């Protein structure tokens, strides 16, 4: 009994030491990750092949009427979007010309790489997605990712054929944004997987109300180019006695239903 306990403690201590060493040495960690991916890949593939048809069958049977309604809505929205695209093409050309004259990068003129979302974050503690394009397609760490009407996040790691995107709702995401007139910048941050974004300590003199749209400020040294829609204000909270607002924000992009994204081939200036 005593021997067994000692053995268990020794094992636990060895494991802890190993984990700390692996955590502190990024090189070993990278190799370990690749090896582990290779080992798990056949199992994941098999499980996916078995589970996906069953899941689709169940989801289709349960949500059929919702799917039909959603399809009709999407057709309607697609029609509207096509109309808007046609209407705005001339305005966009004009804006592009103006921004070029002002020497400000304009997202509409930047190259993008379309990628499919392959997996969602497997954990509750990080808001990330994996996409199907990586280093071989020109995707680099730090590049912004957009989809579904706004900024989605930025690339945090790449492999030759895939990348990981940290979503803007991740607790490690901090974004410099501007609103309405574009003269004031504030920092907003992610609040976790299901909690949107937030900003604290906003001066009472600012004119922010629910519905106000925030877009990236594109300041020198910033992580994003200017003008990418990020989030809308959902709630403005004033703590009694405080001299500042707190903001609750909803991302403009629908992060819960990401299927395809665009990686903007833009690197932050260092």
């Amino acid at each position, binding site marked *: *009994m005593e021997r*067994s306990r000692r*053995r*268990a403690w020794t*094992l*636990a201590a060895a*494991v*802890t030491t190993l*984990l*700390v060493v*692996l*955590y502190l040495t990024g090189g070993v*960690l990278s190799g*370990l*990750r690749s090896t*582990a*991916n290779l*080992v*798990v890949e056949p*199992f*994941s593939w*098999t*499980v*996916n092949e078995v*589970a996906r048809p069953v*899941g689709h069958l169940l989801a289709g049977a349960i949500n059929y009427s919702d799917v039909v309604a959603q399809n009709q809505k999407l057709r309607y929205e697609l029609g509207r979007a096509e109309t808007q695209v046609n209407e705005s093409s001339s305005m966009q050309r004009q804006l592009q010309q103006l921004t070029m004259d002002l020497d400000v990068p304009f997202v509409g003129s930047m190259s993008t790489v379309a990628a499919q979302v392959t*997996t*969602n*974050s*497997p*954990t*509750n*503690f*990080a808001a*990330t997605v994996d996409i199907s394009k990586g280093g071989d397609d020109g995707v680099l760490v730090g590049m912004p990712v957009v989809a579904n009407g706004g900024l989605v996040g930025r690339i*945090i*790691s790449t492999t030759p054929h895939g990348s*990981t995107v*940290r979503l803007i709702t991740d*607790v*490690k995401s901090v974004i410099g944004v501007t609103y309405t007139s574009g003269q004031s910048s504030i920092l907003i941050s992610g*609040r*976790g*997987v*299901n*909690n949107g974004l937030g900003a604290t300590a906003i001066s009472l003199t600012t004119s922010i109300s629910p519905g106000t749209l925030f877009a990236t400020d594109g300041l020198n040294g910033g992580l994003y180019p200017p003008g990418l829609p990020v989030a809308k204000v959902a709630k403005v909270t004033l703590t009694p006695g405080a001299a500042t607002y707190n903001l609750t924000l909803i991302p403009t992009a629908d992060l819960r239903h990401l299927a395809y994204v665009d990686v903007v081939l833009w690197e932050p200036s260092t």
Partner: protein
Amino acid sequence: MRKALVPAVFVTLVIVAVQLTVLSTLRLDGVVIMLVWLWPLAMGLTGFTSLALVTALVAGIFFDTHAATPFGLTAAVAVVIAYGASRLGREGVGDLDSAAWWMTPLLAAAGGLCAPALYVFAGFFAFNFGLWRGSVLAMMIVNACAFFVLSRPLTRLAMAISSMGERPRR
């Protein structure tokens, strides 16, 4: 233990694959059910400490290689859960055949309740101080409920695998 090691590791890899492919998509109230924590707990309840620790380590490490969270944190939590469960298992607490039917699910639910909090706590040692900012309470509740429901079939599977090796010393 040696005879049971290979099937235990095999099943653990399948569990990790299910976690990565199915459960990362199939969220309850936006929360991922952490099968990679429940499985070591179920193995621990069989009373085989070493086997449970190996299972926890394999499940945790392979899961951590796919997550953008501090490497080793899931594994560390799994090891703690497995060790705690194995101590109970060696005393016969949570035995499917002799204890009350609700005992195993209750222990699993307690594990599911504690695991996310333990993870956040462990995050401080990895210099990651932002983990508490997610919906930790929702994670605790959802995982506790899921562990309660899934614990009996998984513990039954764990018993079948561990019985391939020698009996645990009580």
